[in-house]
């Protein structure tokens, strides 16, 4: 499956619902948080149905916990499958991590150890999930604040191996790569260059908080200049990839987010040979 280049998108947030249906801003596509639509109806679905009539929508989950040991959560997967059927998204993503163990859900995206065991485990779980959903999933690299002694390879070798093994493709969060690179003192471009370019289905850009000794991935700031540089350099290796700004907290106006998105477009338009006002 190829993912189409949709252009430049934004994460859909409830505080912007009304403005989006009234103003129909020039955003190419929206990404929704899948679990926010695991509810029967009401405002979330009312707005989503209007918005999806005008814009392509992709789904991004935060709770699949694909890396968890233990049984797959088929209640969750069924809810996801029903939501996919209602939304008809261009594609569906979640994170390469674990969140839940047994009944306990941390609601965090916790890093996997990069071991052969984890690789086998993920490959088998991805296979079962995709079989159940009847479609391909895309997985995002998470940011991390620790590395395990158990790891037998680097995160980038792990991702490349997972792609080789399963064919699964990635939502590359360039900010997450930058955050982890700083926290673990590796070279971010080494990471990015190690992943086969045909495996990149989508790009996230987001803001973080820099504490000098370490960085926390907070999604509550503008994209940093270091991440813009990294994105621009990375874009030179890629064919056009659907790119979006992910902002969860300290959410400003839609105009502010669109200005940031326009910056992303301007940065890579010459590289990807896009019309400046490509819609």
């Amino acid at each position, binding site marked *: 499956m190829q993912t189409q280049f949709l252009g430049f998108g934004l994460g859909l947030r409830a505080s912007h619902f009304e403005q989006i249906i009234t103003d129909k801003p020039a955003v190419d596509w929206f990404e929704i948080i899948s*679990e*926010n639509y*695991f*509810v*029967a*109806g*009401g*405002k*979330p*679905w*009312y707005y989503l149905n209007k918005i999806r009539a005008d814009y392509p929508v992709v789904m991004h989950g935060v*709770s699949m916990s694909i890396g*968890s*040991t*233990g049984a797959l*959560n088929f*209640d*969750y997967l069924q*809810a996801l499958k029903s939501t996919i059927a209602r939304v008809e998204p261009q594609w569906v993503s979640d994170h390469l991590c*674990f969140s*839940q*163990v*047994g*009944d*306990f*859900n*941390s*609601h*965090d995206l*916790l890093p*996997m*150890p990069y*071991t052969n*065991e*984890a690789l086998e*485990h993920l490959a088998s779980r991805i296979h079962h999930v995709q079989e159940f959903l009847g479609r391909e999933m895309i997985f995002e690299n998470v940011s991390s*604040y*620790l*590395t*395990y*002694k*158990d790891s037998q390879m680097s995160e980038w070798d792990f991702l490349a191996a997972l792609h080789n093994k399963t064919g699964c493709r990635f939502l590359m969060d360039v900010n997450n790569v930058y955050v982890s690179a700083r*926290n*673990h*003192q590796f070279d971010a471009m080494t990471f990015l260059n190690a992943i086969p370019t045909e495996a990149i289905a989508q790009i996230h850009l987001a803001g973080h908080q820099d504490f000098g*000794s*370490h960085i*926390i991935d907070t999604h509550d700031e503008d994209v940093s200049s270091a991440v813009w540089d990294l994105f621009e350099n990375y874009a030179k290796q890629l064919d056009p990839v659907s790119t979006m700004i992910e902002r969860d907290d300290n959410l400003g106006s839609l105009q502010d987010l669109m200005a940031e998105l326009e910056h992303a477009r301007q940065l890579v338009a010459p590289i990807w040979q896009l019309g400046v006002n490509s819609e």
Partner: protein
Amino acid sequence: MSDLASLQQQFMAMLQGQDNHLASHIVSDGQLSLSQRLAIYQNAYKLRLRAAIEQDHAQLGIYLGDQLFDKMVTEYLVKYPSNYTSLRFFADELPHYLRNNAPFNAHPILADISYFERCLLIAFDAQEQPLLSIDELEKFTTEQWPTLQLVLHPSVQLMHFNSRAVESWQALKDKQTPPEPYCETTRYWVVARDPERRTQFVNVALPEYRILTLLKQQVNFAQLCQSCINDMPSEKIAGFLISLINQWLERGWLVTTTK
């Protein structure tokens, strides 16, 4: 147990402040100590869930103040660790927690405010259903009326408090001082989404509240009339019910799935 399973269990124990030896699995590198690295995850865990409760219970948060709110979050996390895949439901047991645990249980208004706030959430994302119109209602024949079952919109929720929970919630939202917390008489409330999908709350009198409670139990029109027999002269009952029904139609509380 596999290495991976054991590592994941250690991680979860660490997040919940239980005995664990996760630190022995972590590389000591860079500019942060092991304990700092683990603390980042512990803080993120608590802050994320605190933010979820704060978002759903903004006025409760103001009513409690930062210190008590933190105490509540810390203890709620221990008593009700999340078993949900969506944060939307994580604080569902908060009213129950506040009603049953010191120091919060000494102030029943706290549980009431949190219950009211959870009802607002339900009204926000309850299922969409076509609303009943006057025209449709008028199509029912005189013979059909006694067995007619009116059905409330899924967003309609009934609650009653012996506190001024709703008035306090409104005052805090308007940045005013909340009124005296408790009142002599019970207050009856309906929370529901209106036809424009705005969440509304309406103070109703006991007779109306009783009728709405019966509707939730799926009784028919004849049974509704019967329930009023001790409250008013029988010739006034039908008129009383019709005027309520007209109000509910306007407010969007009735749906077309009548039986």
